[in-house]
């Protein structure tokens, strides 16, 4: 008796399963920008926002998806213009979800900047989401988040 290993029903089911797992894999490898995701719960961030509702999308935070060494992770935060009169960026703060000191840095612009782009290197104590908060002169608050997978975390051992 010849056994049918591919009955039509099971085959269709399997194809669906393969397609679904493929989609799942693609979602993991190519994540969508986390900009629309809610902010991670960081008490210092909540205190900093002080109840103001942040806007997503305009501020851009670039961190590598995967960082081999959490002691120095390249970070870039940008906010493309143009900015309306009285709506320039006055400060940008960076918050970490996992670092022992959540507020990593704050950059201030005493004069309206023509180009908002700051690059530095941050320490990250483990895989986490990082949040950038820009405050505009008119009071608007813009946020961006980035998720980083850190292989070797900072703070656990010497540099």
């Amino acid at each position: 008796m010849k056994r049918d290993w591919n009955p039509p029903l099971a085959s269709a089911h399997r194809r669906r399963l393969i397609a679904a797992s493929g989609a799942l894999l693609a979602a993991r490898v190519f994540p969508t920008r986390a900009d629309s995701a809610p902010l991670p719960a960081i008490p210092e961030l909540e205190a900093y926002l002080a109840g103001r509702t942040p806007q997503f999308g305009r501020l851009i935070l670039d961190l590598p998806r995967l960082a081999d060494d959490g002691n120095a992770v390249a970070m870039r935060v940008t906010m493309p213009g143009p900015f309306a009169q009285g709506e320039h960026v006055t400060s940008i703060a960076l918050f970490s979800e996992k670092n022992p000191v959540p507020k990593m840095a704050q950059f201030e612009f005493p004069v309206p900047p023509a180009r908002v782009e700051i690059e530095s290197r941050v320490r990250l104590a483990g895989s986490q989401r990082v949040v950038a908060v820009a405050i505009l002169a008119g009071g608007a608050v813009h946020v961006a988040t980035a998720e980083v997978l850190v292989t070797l975390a900072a703070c656990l051992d010497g540099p």
Partner: protein
Amino acid sequence: MAASRLQVPAEVRRGDSFEVKISIRHPMETGFRVDDSGKPIPRNTIREFTCRYNGKPVFIARLGSGIAANPYLRFFLTAAESGQLSFEWVDEAGERGDALASLTVVG
């Protein structure tokens, strides 16, 4: 204290944005590390970095233990008048460092 490396264009057009890159030699001690005898090393980071353009503050960075050792900063300024860019920073031990660059604005 603290040697630094600074990169600023020598000449820029009036009204243009120009790039400033600075790297400061500093351990940015987190306060979470211990020395060889097991004694905690006190925290010492560059708390404040100020960039002045002809004496007027134009960019301030308040840093902490979340910034990597030998902090590197890259930011943009807008060319207005020829003159001097001065950079000054202070760490938690009260040590100060500075760097200077002159800028020629054309056009």
